[in-house]
């Protein structure tokens, strides 16, 4: 998918939770939202993007959440073409 679109969507999620004064809670909430509502290929793509580029256009809590997402929960589900 268009990575710029994914980055924009992730940053929008970050904007909502950034209002929370507790940084850790904000990061945790961003990660939970991504896990609960993004299809695995979308998560996989943005994780890869962070690995490959450092995610310079991602807001810091979002980048942190994406990296945490990778470490906390494996991205399950098959990739297209797995069958």
């Amino acid at each position, binding site marked *: *998918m*268009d990575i710029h*679109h994914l980055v*924009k*969507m992730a940053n*929008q*999620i970050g*904007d*909502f939770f*950034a*209002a*929370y*004064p507790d940084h850790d809670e904000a990061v945790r909430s961003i990660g939970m*939202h991504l896990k*609960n*509502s*993004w*299809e*695995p*290929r*979308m998560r996989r793509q943005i994780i890869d993007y962070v690995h490959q580029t450092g995610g310079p256009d991602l807001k810091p809590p979002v980048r942190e959440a994406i990296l945490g997402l990778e470490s906390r929960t494996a991205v*399950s*589900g*098959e*990739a*297209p*073409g*797995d*069958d």
Partner: protein
Amino acid sequence: MLSITDRDYGTPPEASATMVELFIDGKPISVPAGTSVMRAAAMLGVRVPKLCATDSLAAYGSCRLCLVEIEGRKGYPASCTTPVEPGMKVLTHSARVADLRRNVMELYISDHPLDCLTCPANGNCELQDMAGAVGLREVRYGYEGANHLHSPKDESNPYFTFDPSKCIVCARCVRACEEIQGTFALTIDGRGFASVISPGQNQPFMESECVSCGACVQACPTATLTEKSVIDKGQAEHSIVTTCGYCGVGCSFKAEMKGNEVVRMVPNKDGMPNHGHSCVKGRFAWGYATHRDRVLKPMVRDSIDEQWRAASWEEAIARAAAGLKRVQQQYGRGAVGGITSSRCTNEETYLVQKLMRAALGTNNVDTCARVCHSPTGYGLKTAFGTSAGTQDFDSVLKTDVIMVIGANPTEGHPVFASIMKRRLRQGAKLIVVDPRRIELVKTPHVAAVYHLPVRPGCNVALINAMAHVVVTEGLMDEDFVRERCEAADFELWKKFIVQPHNSPEAVAEIVGVPAHDIRGAARLYASAGNAVIYYGLGVTEHSQGSTMVLGMANLAMATGNLGREGVGVNPLRGQNNVQGSCDMGSFPHELTGYRHISDPVVRAAFEKEWGVRLDPEPGLRIPNMFDAALDGTFKALYVEGEDIAQSDPNSSHVVAALRAMEFVVVHDIFLNETARYAHVFLPGSSFLEKNGTFTNSERRISMVRKVMPPMAGKEDWEVTMALSNALGYPMEYKHPSEIMDEIARLTPTFAGVSYAKLERVGSVQWPCNDAAPLGTPVMHVGQFVRGKGRFTITEYVPTDERTGPRYPLLLTTGRVLTQYNVGTQTRRTANVMWHGEDRLEIHPHDAEQRGVRDGDWVTVTSRAGAITLRALITDRVAPGVVYTTFHHPETGTNVVTTENSDWATNCPEYKVTAVQVMPLPAGRAPARREAPMQAHAPAAK
């Protein structure tokens, strides 16, 4: 005229708990205090003759036909206007009252055509019935005197005629327009014998303020106001109760039939959402169901560049299954998906998500609620614990302050708007939050105390400012917050909301509303005994749609306006089954009843019932499907009842995605825009041709009944079932009731729902289970579904869609009363007489700056695309804001809307698009899109 099966008690019921015992014709009866003698008699089965009385209207006492004798009273009181009294002894029939009634009737008939045999009301005419009831045998006055027998007919309305020669001036039509509809379009002009019914200022109906709701037609006791369909076809011979196929009010109707042909649709007096009322769409605009454009045979083609070829059901289903399987084999399970419409029944949407999850092994299933009310689901579930409005419709009759935000009820939810207007006429106060001056702001006998013309995209700043006022001015309901809400979340929110940047003064310039109006509106809302919020897509279709829903929930909790009648937070759903389609597990991350797919306990129940393993990960949402298609990882789609190529934002993007797919199956009643890109077309069935249920905006589950056989041979649930069987996953339902039984087994909030119960009680509002066997009209009484209510910090984040030198205006979109959504149905009815094209509303100042005159063709350009339509200059929109509808494919309104979307749900931001508007150069033909039917009709067979 009333429904052929209605029993008319003459005057409305009374709700008093005090009972009064009296005697009518010697028989004792006990009725609520305030009941009329006429109604009490009708309850005993005694029919007192009447003409001006009907039980949908307040007693009027003009026709003098219902005179009775009451022991100990002088004269002959009208039974409709005489309330019962303890011990009263009434005589409904005597020689004296018979004489009086006959004399009255004689006068009526002396000025009435004697054409009963050829009259369209023959067989269902109250005047005819009364002439028989009073034993009229002669008219001593003759017919040669002054009369109205040659008054010309008004046939301007496409759906009914007005024949004044048959009018008895009972004023039932005038009163229906006032009391039921609240439009006040009719009056009685003149006095005495010269009295006539006058639409507007003695205008034809179509030129008056009449909104064609049909309340007058239903109230008329003669053939004066008659449906043209009745004139054409004659009286119906049977009647079937069903549910309207249009908006989220979900009106109950009686389909009056001759064999398999609909003669007319009459709103059901016993229908809970509508209490016998309707709008122009539900009552009259049903002709699309048998329109010649209906596609009645399955069609197939190998490529979207080929002509369609008619096929048998077997071939088409086999091709659809083979195409989906082939794509999955080649690209993986996640390369296919399904989309359903909120026009589908609960059973149909349930079945499609089951097909996707169980037969195809993917959670890539979504419903069109994605693009309208998905933020409602997220917001209300987060705050209260469940994704639905809190009240039943009738709750509005107990409210003191109504706040309407981003909704236009008189256009989008007209029947509920009539109930709302009734409450406002009784004295409730109104706050309207909308960029446009919608009709409700000032309409006969209704005026908003505050109209806050919020700038598109700024709702959250406004609601935060209102909450700031509530907290800083000590207007909170401290007890409610302490007892009913999470303390820690509340404290966090309170610290946030009192910050100066949330004050009305700080945001006034941003939102475009003076600070004192924001303060005034907040005080009014917070100080009411009961205050309620109704909202629509003007809330949800924003990049902060979910935040705004949370903001409204915060405000309602802070002021204690939840958990009883007259209060609450209530989405007005656009389509008839938005609530139901969301309930049915149609979102890619949720199973039925809003339970996340990752929950192993919930998943296990479905796995056991369905006999398959389910993927625990969320699937793709509709916009994600389009993005994945363009990325090459999403290749096949099954779409039931939804025209994504016209209704979804940034049409060019959607079309590119559809073109990028290898296999598309469209299942619809018409060959819509999306079908241009399809390989298999499966003909659908309209709401008249199938059984099922719809769930309306107040969570009310109502029966949809098959009144005629499916024109293409199959009900939609049968088609999905056939597809599943062809895919190798057996489905063997014999009736949709079995699908509902399965839903009830798997869904705690539906555990008590069954067709048998719906047949018995009419309708129920979920939750319906052992704890609430007859359903739940008001939610969150005593405690929230989630336990304690949750306050959430709702920081205002401006949308990326901003005006600038290139696109200096903000476009917002909406709908009109006579058209429905993308117009697939209503454009194929006479409703086009009211709205034949989309127009761009532009403020006189903005028009003048651009040299645009009323009616000029203009081009609207955004960063997504450009469209051409004609301008309508009006100060209903504020300077800097333009508005249009999206009912006509020739306009292609969604070519200019962008794929900007809500942060939580990806609901598109239809309501905010930065645009430029310029007049079309003289001599240049407007660029219009081709109407779909002309563009890709199948080759004639």
